[in-house]
């Protein structure tokens, strides 16, 4: 793969018409890149700059906003909404851990144990993508309903007593509690965990498992010393693909939660679309972006140096 990128094939055959294609070839990459990059610069990078400028503006919707370098907006936003920030991080982290615990066996199953069922299971993992995720999230309202079977079973097993004590649920219900929101987040982002895990597991040579077995490693030891370390790239990209969107999500908190489970995404959405306080909303989404970038960098560093070796 590296030889391929390091030594790109010459655009034209070397012998017959050497000069004209080379000349054209020099600018070809730029022509190919131009339209797409222009799109990303204008509609992705430029908006970020606009948003940065909005976050330090003051004024009102009627009189218009002006850049006044009013950094206090950041401080005010942070001091008012830190519970929602904290909650988002906790919920997203909880959902990510659950996704890893739930997704790993399924990815492992598809990669090593599924045999001729592999393609079918793959389809069943991907196909829900094509049913609107909002419809599927609403279905959780039915599944977790107060008089529904899930709540009934959890209640009979006295699981709800425990989760009540932990503050994950309230009373005899699951809907409108943190547990419901985390359940929805886990569900919604699970495929984003399974697919990278599967890709990295699939690359592992099955003979390594045999070799571990030949060296008297028990299955669990084989997993701990061989399979899991080799699947680290999948674990890292899977956790990132789950954590980042989960931290910014507001759909699950809105549909399955209550006012006590509002995440930072809900606050940004309300500030932007209902209260129309653009500077605060812009500041909030910048803080969210910065916090995520920081956490992701630290995480990649740690995962990249300690666990990978």
């Amino acid at each position, binding site marked *: 793969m590296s030889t391929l990128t390091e030594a790109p094939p010459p655009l034209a055959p070397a012998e017959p018409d050497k000069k004209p294609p080379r000349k054209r070839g020099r600018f*070809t990459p730029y022509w190919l890149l131009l339209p797409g990059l222009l799109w990303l610069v204008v509609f992705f990078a430029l908006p970020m700059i606009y948003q940065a400028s909005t976050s330090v503006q003051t004024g009102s919707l009627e009189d218009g906003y002006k850049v006044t370098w009013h950094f206090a907006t950041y401080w005010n936003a942070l001091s008012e909404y830190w519970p929602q920030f904290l909650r988002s991080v906790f919920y997203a982290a909880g959902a990510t851990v659950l996704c890893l615990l*739930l997704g790993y066996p399924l990815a492992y*199953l598809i990669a090593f144990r599924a045999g001729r069922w592999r393609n079918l299971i793959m389809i069943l993992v991907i196909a829900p993508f*094509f049913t*609107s995720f909002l419809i599927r999230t609403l279905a959780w309202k039915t599944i977790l309903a107060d008089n529904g079977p899930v709540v009934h079973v959890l209640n009979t097993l006295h699981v709800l007593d425990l989760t009540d004590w932990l503050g994950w649920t309230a009373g005899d219900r699951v809907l409108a509690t943190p547990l419901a929101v985390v359940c929805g987040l886990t*569900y919604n982002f699970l495929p984003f965990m399974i697919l990278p895990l599967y890709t990295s597991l699939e690359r592992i040579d099955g003979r390594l498992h045999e070799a571990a077995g030949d060296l008297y490693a028990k299955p669990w030891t084989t997993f701990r010393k061989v399979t899991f370390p080799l699947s680290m790239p999948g674990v890292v990209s899977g956790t990132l693909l789950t954590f980042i969107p989960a931290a910014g999500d507001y759909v699950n908190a809105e549909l399955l939660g209550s006012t006590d489970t509002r995440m930072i995404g809900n606050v940004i959405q309300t500030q932007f679309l209902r209260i129309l306080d653009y500077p605060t909303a812009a500041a909030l989404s910048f803080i969210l972006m910065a916090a995520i970038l920081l956490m992701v960098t630290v995480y990649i560093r740690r995962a990249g140096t300690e666990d990978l070796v």
Partner: protein
Amino acid sequence: MPFVNWLKRHLVVIAGLLTLGYLLLPNVVVTVFSFNKPKGRFNYEWQQFSTDAWKDPCGVADMCGSLSISLQIAFWATIGATLLGTMISFALVRYRFRARSAVNSLIFLPMAMPEVVMAASLLTLFLNMGAQLGFYTILIAHIMFCLSFVVVAVKARVMSMDPRLEEAARDLYAGPAQTFLRVTLPIAAPGIAAGALLSFALSFDDFIITNFNAGSTVTFPMFVWGSAQRGTPVQINVIGTAMFLVAVLLVLTSMLITNRRNKQKA
């Protein structure tokens, strides 16, 4: 304890299948509730079996209109993102040029950004430009966030392609256009198709970015969102079920076709 041993041996399979069940449970519920006859405005509790909604899927005001808007946006967004993304990935794989790593990170960033941040920043841009929010602002946004996914999908395919195939074509006196159309493009096609399919699904299903930049235009996800507050008609579940079935059927047929082709080759 034969049962415990059996459980130990199949632990991974059992856990994996349970996860699969967790993934598919909402789809089952959606399908079952598409045959419900609800009493009130909401379709969250099972009342009575009925096929009314299936007989009249467009019986709800504005739902099929929003569906058609979503399909149109997804169609054009797929074309736009696939075209731009394929061009970028060919440039990235086939050429060395300055700022290559900068381009790579610009493409990576939209995938690593929470949607709400992108949505809000795009809205600030549109507000500052005084753009009319609606169909075209949604389309612009969708092309923007689908682009990166297309690049990733196509890049993976083009990178694994043997450059000697193209050299061989040229040795056989194929012109650049002929080489591209008859050798390069067919080999890259699965990657391009995967990127296009992903774009379509992402665009069709997007809610957060659309919600910020839609103005008064209502796409299908936005209709579902609104109905969660006003009352969900059964027809929403009908559309959800139909979409799931169509997706499964499409993938199954494409798999059958490739299987048959591979057999013919062998």
